[in-house]
């Protein structure tokens, strides 16, 4: 990359990526504007499925934002030499994903122009209100953390900042899981297990995003990840996948054991015979493609020729979306049991499994958030030195 031609092509690639990310972001903003003008009637959401596809995107990005910081924590807090040079990229991705996720969440509000109300009126019994502080605090802590890593004079503060970020993101993901965990009304949620489940899911999803971005950066710079480094990251991701699957199994087993939860669990895991997508998404999407396949690829290097690590990570992300779709949409599709032991009908969908089909504004808004995270990452990587320098001898594991 020392020649003028190389530098020119490098610059062209950057602008291509930045423009692509920018266009997707603008498309997301346009979809949000369309939704604001016409109301949520233009989406697939209704009074039964009140949180739709945008929440799937937003919660994926917010949970992954917490998990992606794992790499930095392992490096700064636990002093692992393989992870230390990756800490800045990990911090940048955290900020980018948090921004993308919050953008989707805010623009999906019924009154997005009142976001200032959310910043000035707090109800401290609301998990959402806690999260307003948790998200903004996270951004501030990670910004300081990045500063301590880049500014040589403050390098000594990097470890305390890293510890603060580690603690904060545990609390943050507890908060995200508790958005659902504290909902006593719905059979799909109301479980204290959701907080630790979301923390463990965040580890896997965040590391998967990190691995994909790192692979793209290495490919762009014509570099190859050292096999030992690849092996370490693969094993760690496999461990996170297994831990996530374990908690998901415990969650569903508990529900299956409770007689009052049996109908709901059967609906999610086996279906109700009306062609609802949730069992297929759970078993084929989350368990098989999102967990078993990448698990095998990660543990047996022979199963992942070529760019196997990022491909396995892509499967993990795919599984994450399948999991969240089943969890968020499937959880709402199951009717509330206001009259247990009764068959019920009404004009308001009582007693019926709700159907949901996301429409284009929801897809565009969700993808717009991903575009914003992509754009921020691209610009960040260009402006500051986020490239992991693990070809240095001291970084060898």
């Amino acid at each position: 990359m020392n020649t003028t031609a190389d530098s020119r092509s490098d610059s062209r690639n950057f602008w291509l990526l930045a423009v692509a990310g920018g266009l997707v972001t603008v498309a997301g903003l346009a979809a949000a504007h369309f939704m604001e003008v016409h109301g949520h009637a233009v989406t697939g959401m209704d009074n039964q499925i009140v949180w739709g596809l945008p929440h799937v995107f937003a919660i994926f990005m917010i949970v992954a934002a917490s998990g992606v910081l794992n790499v930095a924590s392992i490096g700064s807090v636990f002093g692992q030499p393989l992870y230390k040079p990756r800490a800045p990229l990990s911090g940048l991705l955290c900020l980018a994903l948090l921004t993308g996720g919050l953008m989707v969440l805010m623009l999906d509000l019924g009154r997005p122009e009142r976001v200032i109300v959310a910043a000035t009126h707090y109800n401290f019994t609301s998990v959402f209100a806690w999260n307003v502080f948790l998200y903004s605090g996270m951004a501030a802590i990670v910004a300081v953390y990045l500063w301590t890593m880049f500014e040589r004079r403050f390098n000594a503060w990097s470890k305390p900042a890293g510890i603060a970020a580690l603690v904060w993101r545990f609390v943050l993901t507890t908060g995200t899981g508790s958005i659902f965990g504290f909902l006593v009304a719905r059979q799909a949620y109301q479980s204290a297990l959701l907080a630790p489940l979301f923390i463990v899911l965040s580890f896997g999803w965040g590391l998967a995003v990190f691995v994909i971005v790192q692979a793209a950066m290495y490919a762009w710079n014509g570099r190859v990840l050292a096999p030992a480094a690849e092996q370490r990251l693969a094993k760690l991701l496999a461990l996170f996948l297994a831990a996530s699957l374990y908690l998901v199994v415990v969650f569903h087993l508990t529900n299956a054991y409770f007689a009052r939860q049996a109908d709901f669990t059967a609906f999610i895991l086996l279906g109700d015979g009306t062609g609802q997508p949730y069992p297929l998404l759970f078993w084929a999407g989350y368990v098989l493609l999102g967990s078993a396949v990448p698990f095998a690829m990660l543990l047996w290097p022979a199963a992942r020729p070529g760019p196997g690590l990022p491909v396995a990570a892509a499967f993990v992300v795919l599984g994450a979306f399948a999991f969240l779709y089943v969890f968020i949409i499937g959880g709402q599709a199951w009717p509330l049991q206001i009259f247990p032991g009764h068959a019920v009908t009404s004009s308001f969908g009582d007693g019926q499994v709700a159907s949901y089909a996301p429409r284009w504004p929801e897809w565009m808004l969700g993808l717009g958030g991903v575009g914003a995270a992509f754009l921020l990452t691209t610009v960040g990587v260009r402006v500051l030195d986020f490239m992991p320098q693990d070809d240095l001898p001291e970084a060898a594991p």
Partner: protein
Amino acid sequence: MSRRGFLGVAAAGLAGVVLAPGVRLIEVAQAASEGTPGAGASAKVRWGMLIDTTKCASGCTDCVTACNTENGLDPRTTRTSSQWIRKIEIKEIRTGRQASVPVMCQHCASPPCVDVCPTGASFKRADGIVLVDRHTCIGCRYCMMACPYKARSFVHEPLADQKPEVPRGKGCVESCTLCVHRIDHAADRSKVTTACAEACTKAGHGAIVFGDLNDPDSEISRRVRAVRSTQLRADLGLGTGVRYEGL
């Protein structure tokens, strides 16, 4: 007049225009004392309803129609329409026993919607009525996720022809207000009733009784003392203001 003088007069005039309505509102608020029309909610009162499902006729939707008319709601029932009250036809699976049950916001003593609302837009008045402040609702729909009764609706489309006494807003969440505008404007609150209860009585069913649960002499208090009534999802311990008879 000098330029400085003009600016001074203009600023004073502007301040007057901006402040006067606020001063006027404070006067109005102070003038309305407890028990008079326009007075605030009193903690001495606990508004509630008793619904006798043995008197509610299957297929009759007079309460729903009255609610729609009173509050300016679109009577069409679509998957995105607001339905503040709905008739649920229930049939016990084991016994086949049937009943028709009007369900609306249950005006809980410990409302989950109020707990989860991030801005405090969902709130409970001193007199037990659970409302949504249309000025601070950001449309996050968390309250709809939290309500065990599916009592809340989200306004999915722009609105037209609103009732001045029942302000609504696109992108906000709303639900049964127990006809709070009637209560707050009533000269004698002991005689006030909701649109649904009024329509039910008019139809000859008399299945809905509205009143003050804290007043031992009110009809609703006498009834709940005399007959067995239940709360929906009593297992959740929310202390609903709406009770049911004959379930």
